[in-house]
């Protein structure tokens, strides 16, 4: 086991881009090594030792690395980007693109995760205990696929465009989601336990389950009647008909 603790030294205002904070990068490294790694505050490179108090306990491969971040990192972006194994726990809020391109391992955020958490995720698991921003588990502009694998759970609410361009994997929003969850989906599964609007626009394949209220349905779904899923009754819709979609949309 290797445990690394990072405590932010300041309240960052201008975002720090810290894609260097991953179990893969920290595995087997000393506090000094880690301290020398560079993050960016806007255009200015800053070593991690300047930004965080760093303690390292033990040494291990990525899969056995745990990184704990204690403090306000609401302005630290790209934590866990591309990681393949290991664990990151953020006790606080986290900035955009947390866990983008993640391939394995797990990230837990106890507070708020800003937009694009899990962008283009391939595998692994992200848990957000608080709320999340826009584009949970979504893609990058122009790419046909966003998330292709893995699992994201948001205990609070999420903003618009949950799972945009979802091609695989699973997203669970325990609270409410903003508009247009599952837009342009080609696969995967989205469960929204709260309310949402206009789910599944331009979905070609995949599953969306909404347990709360949908005030605005897209006018492009075929109502197929009542269906029970895991013991709960839903109205099942198939569509989006304008893209010859066979996506399944279940609304309670």
């Amino acid at each position, binding site marked *: 086991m290797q445990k690394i603790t990072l405590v932010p030294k300041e309240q960052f*205002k*201008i*975002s720090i*881009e810290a894609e260097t904070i991953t179990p893969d990068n920290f595995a087997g490294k000393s506090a000094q090594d880690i301290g020398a790694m560079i993050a*960016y*505050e*806007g*255009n*200015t490179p800053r070593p991690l030792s300047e930004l965080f108090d760093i303690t390292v306990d033990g040494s291990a491969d990525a899969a056995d690395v745990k990184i704990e971040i204690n403090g306000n990192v609401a*302005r630290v972006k790209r934590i866990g980007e591309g990681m393949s194994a290991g664990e990151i726990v953020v006790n606080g809020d986290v900035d*955009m*693109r947390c866990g983008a391109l993640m391939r394995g391992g797990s990230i837990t955020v106890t507070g708020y995760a800003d*937009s*694009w958490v899990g962008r283009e995720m391939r595998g692994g698991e992200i848990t957000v205990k608080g709320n999340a921003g*826009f*584009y949970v588990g979504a893609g*990058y*502009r*122009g790419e046909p696929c966003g998330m292709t694998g893995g699992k994201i759970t948001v205990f609070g609410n999420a903003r618009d465009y949950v799972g945009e361009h979802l091609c695989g994997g699973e997203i669970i929003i325990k609270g409410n989601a903003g*508009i*247009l969850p599952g*837009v*342009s989906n080609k696969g995967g599964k989205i469960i929204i336990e709260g309310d949402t609007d*206009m789910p599944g*626009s*331009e979905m070609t394949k995949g599953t969306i389950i909404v347990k709360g209220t949908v005030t*605005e*349905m*897209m*006018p*492009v*779904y*075929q*109502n197929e009647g009542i269906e029970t899923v895991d013991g709960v009754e839903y109205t099942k819709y198939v*569509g*989006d*008909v*304008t893209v010859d979609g066979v996506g399944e949309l279940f609304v309670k």
Partner: protein
Amino acid sequence: MLIKDVICPFCGCLCDDLAVEVENNKVIDVKHACKIGAAKIRGHNRIEAPMMRESKTDEFREVSYDEAINEAARILVDSKRPLMYGWASCLCEMMKKGVLLAEEVGGILDNTASVCHGPSALGVQEKGIPTGTLGQFANRADVVIFWGCNPVQAHPRHMSRYSVFAKGFFTNKGRKDRKIVVVDVRKTDTAEMADEYVQVNPGEDYKLLAAFRAAVADKADVIPDTVAGVSKEKIVELAAAMKGAKYGIVYFGMGVTQTRCKYKNIDIAVSLTTDLNAYTKFSIIPMRGHYNVTGAGQVFAWETGYVNGIDMSRGVPYYNPGETCSNDMLMREELDSAFVIGGDAGAHFPAQSIARMAKIPVIQVDPFHNPTTEMANIVIPVKVSGVELAGTAYRMDSVCLRMRKLVDVDFPSDEEVLDKILAKVKEIKGVS
């Protein structure tokens, strides 16, 4: 002296048939232009000299160009996240210098599209865009749809030159050869003169466009009785009219780019247009506002690969609207300085953003006093592009023309100012 074939430096119509009477190096008459274009060319009270102030509540004091330029350079070099915003009222030649400066200072390069048609670019990135040059529409279109735009007010000569009254090769009866449809949340002046006005509930264009797609695909059975305040009957009828066109064109504006769903409205409008191409010929085009905002997007794209919201801080351009555009950053108080040129942030940004801008050093390069001047610390007046300076601009349909110089003035061009700032920045940084 009458200068003919003058190109108007105001809106995206880029009318190039103006005639300007110049005497003693002054514009005394502007013919053929609309009122706002004429006003721009005639000019108004301009900023006479560079000025600076420490605090935004102080009075400005007049300074030399060198002093203003040097201080601007110092601020940019000292910044970790400088914004370089505007560009849309500048000529392409100087935008290239702007890209270079943004690279050199590792800042954010953004243009007015962020508060205007930036969403249209995002829609294009999802779906593409079936479009053409304005003459194509003038010569061929028999079904003309204005969606969320009001050319009578915002693009006054658009209808006579391109979209409604123009007589073209296949449309030689002009207005009589066209069916004009307006879709908007209220009955605008353009709606008043249309053949058909469709009132859509505010913020519900997206659903209406989706319903149109279903109707066009002969899947109207899934459409509810009313969508966005429009009856299913009307939707089916209009879908049929669109499919029955010889050539359909959709002009769209802020009514869809800056309302709920934003870029998804454009995305789905493009999809509808593409769907219609299976039945007949249909095109779509954004009604660009500033006369060279299209040029800003073009120049940025060929230089960096992206149209706006470009973050240069990591040495490689990064683009992600929602993260890297001006207001995205201002709302998070992420910028530590702002350089505003050829764009009026003070007039167009939301109040919260302006409040944030008031807390950081702001450098303005502009011939005219405007709301941005109110929050500036350094103001550098320059030639009016397209009136006092010749150079390149791109019309809303990406046709590019060379703007003329009509009069001589004793101000530097914005390009000269940028060159000097760049030189000073390099000097301060110790690079060659």
